[in-house]
């Protein structure tokens, strides 16, 4: 039988345009808006529960740097889940990458090349080694999945056991630290760009964002496509500008404690002037996350590779029939996941200032939860990078908020688990209502 026996429904004239609502005119994804709303709600509730301690510059700063590691991996997990796979091994891979980088900078480089901790090349060589290890492990797992057609669930479940213990053998189960000083700057509080540069970066970001809005509008006008009203465009622009500059202002409002400043001046052999203050500003790790987010978004939306990832997720057979090499694509996706895990390992081990055996434990669950809360559909074909990052932020806010309120760890986990299930259920209801898949 033919699989499409429904006869000509396409002659039906398209429904008369209903009056366009405020939100449709803005062309904003209502799902994204809902997530931002949920995030704000979580923040406000915890702020009340903690008598205003939750929304202080200090806590927002901490929340931001705690989110980075999971958020970086979540962007890669979006592609994995979009293509109907899963990666349970990211936490264990993170440990292997972290171990490789720690051994490189504390053992291999000093012994083999005489480059000690503090040598300008040390951190970069270590990071390069981590990236190669991560990408290689990822590519290998991708090859098992794509070419040998072993289900991703099984390959990465095996990986979960294997890579954590490979990491153990690499370090004989020992904690390795302290790590290189420059390397540690990727951890968060030990590496920030300072007040002035934060403003410069913020202003450049605003200019770039507004330019992108404007050029996309101009592009549409050139092709005579419908554009949203000018006031809507302007409103979106203002919201973005206020958001970016507000974020910079908050990070800049978190001042370095006087004791630490004193120590820094002493270390340089100088005397600190009276009433001297300095703010942390944007951490390097956050800049790294932003760069990755932009890169991954461009990859998803504007490159062939991204198009093939989503096409394969939507209909693997159609992708194959369109000449897409879906096996090789699987290898690429998992290699990319591995490279992102390596970057995440840089941030995580730098934040701890050492490599420890249990680094990244249970991260696979946090990363998958972040991607799923962020709207990535396990059925494949649907997901966004910004959603996954927001998902990571919501999870971290819940966790930190509960810790501040004094909820004990077991209950924290119970709540996070319940929220994950609830979020997916809301998503299902939402998609059913809006007619999406």
């Amino acid at each position, binding site marked *: *039988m*033919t*699989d*499409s*026996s*429904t*006869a*000509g*429904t*396409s*002659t*039906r*004239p*398209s429904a008369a345009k209903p009056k366009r609502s405020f939100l449709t005119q803005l062309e904003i994804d209502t799902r994204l808006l809902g997530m931002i709303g949920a995030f704000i709600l979580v923040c406000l509730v915890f702020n009340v529960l903690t008598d205003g301690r939750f929304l202080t510059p200090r806590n927002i700063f901490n929340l931001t740097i705690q989110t980075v590691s999971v958020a970086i991996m979540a962007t890669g997990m979006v592609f994995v889940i979009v293509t109907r796979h899963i990666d349970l091994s990211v936490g264990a891979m993170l440990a292997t990458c972290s171990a490789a980088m720690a051994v490189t900078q504390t053992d291999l480089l000093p012994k083999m090349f005489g480059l000690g901790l503090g040598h300008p090349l040390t951190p970069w060589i270590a990071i390069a080694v981590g990236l190669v290890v991560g990408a290689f492990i990822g590519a290998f797992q991708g090859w098992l999945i794509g070419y040998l057609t072993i289900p991703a669930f099984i390959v990465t479940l095996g990986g979960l056991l294997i890579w954590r213990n490979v990491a153990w053998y690499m370090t004989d189960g020992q904690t390795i630290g302290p790590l290189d000083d420059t390397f540690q700057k990727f951890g968060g509080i030990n590496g920030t760009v300072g007040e002035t540069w934060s403003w410069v970066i913020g202003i450049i970001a605003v200019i770039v964002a507004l330019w992108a809005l404007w050029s996309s509008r101009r*592009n*549409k006008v*050139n*092709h005579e*496509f419908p554009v949203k009203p000018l006031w809507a465009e302007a409103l979106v622009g203002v919201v973005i500008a206020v958001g970016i500059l507000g974020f910079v202002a908050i990070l800049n409002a978190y001042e370095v404690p006087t004791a630490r400043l004193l120590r820094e001046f002493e270390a340089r052999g100088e005397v600190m002037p009276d009433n001297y203050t300095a703010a942390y500003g944007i951490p390097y790790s956050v800049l790294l996350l932003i760069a990755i987010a932009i890169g991954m978004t*461009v990859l998803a939306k*504007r*490159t*062939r590779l991204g*198009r*093939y990832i*989503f*096409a*394969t*997720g*939507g*209909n693997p*057979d*159609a*992708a*194959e*029939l*369109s*000449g*897409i090499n879906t096996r090789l694509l699987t290898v690429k996706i998992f290699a990319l996941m591995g490279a992102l895990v390596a970057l995440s390992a840089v941030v995580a081990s730098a934040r701890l200032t050492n490599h420890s055996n249990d680094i990244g434990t249970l991260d696979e669950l946090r990363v998958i939860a972040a991607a799923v809360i962020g709207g990535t559909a396990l059925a494949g*074909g*649907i997901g966004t990078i910004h959603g996954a990052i927001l998902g990571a932020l919501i999870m971290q806010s819940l966790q930190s908020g509960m810790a501040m309120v004094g909820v004990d760890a077991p209950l924290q986990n119970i709540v996070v688990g319940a929220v994950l299930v609830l979020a997916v259920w809301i998503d299902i209801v939402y998609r059913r209502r809006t*007619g*999406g*898949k």
Partner: protein
Amino acid sequence: MTPLVELKNISLSFGGVRAVDNVSLDLHPGEVVGLLGHNGAGKSTLIKILAGAYQMDEGEIWIEGKKVNIQSPRDARRHNIETIYQTLALADNLDAPSNLFLGRELTNRFGLVDDAQMEAETRKIMARLNPNFKKISEPVSALSGGQRQSVAIARAVYFNAKILIMDEPTAALGVHESKMVADLIKELKAQGLGIFLISHDTREMLDLCDRVSVMKNGALIGTEKVGDVTEDDILSMIIMGKARDAA
């Protein structure tokens, strides 16, 4: 004149089922060859071999007098073979332009996919194929069966095919849209394309095709010029599974 396509003694089995059994067919430029047969006769399987979706067990494919090796859909596209699959082969989560250009995206000077350009091209070709088509930037899962079929047809005719394979292209189309596809087939034929057309509508086939081939249980029953046969002759070939002379 060398035929555009020659399929020589093609066979393919799925497990124990001989889906295509020693079939030979040819197709000339500017010719429409129809494939008829009951459900499961092997029509789709045969053309999927030409389209690169399946690899034959035995047989040869010759294109413009040269033996070719078609291992994948990409190989088929390289020989200017375009296919409208019975299942349409659309990625439901993507919009019409992304589906139309899937695997052959237009890019700008930075190598990034140029969605605006692809949308403009899609609007142009859809205006020709199905003027009622308005849902350009919605996922194709939101389209009706006929609209989806229009997207699949647009994809096959956009890229200057020399050889066009249409597996039940009008199955989901309304009367008006079917007429437009029929006109399109005549136009493409006039431009010198060779077309393999599969349909269960015998009358439509006699109207559009130059020759029709009938298959049954994977084997070719016979090929006839449409001028030489009546609709009843064809129907009896399909049902009896015997060539006309023998009948």
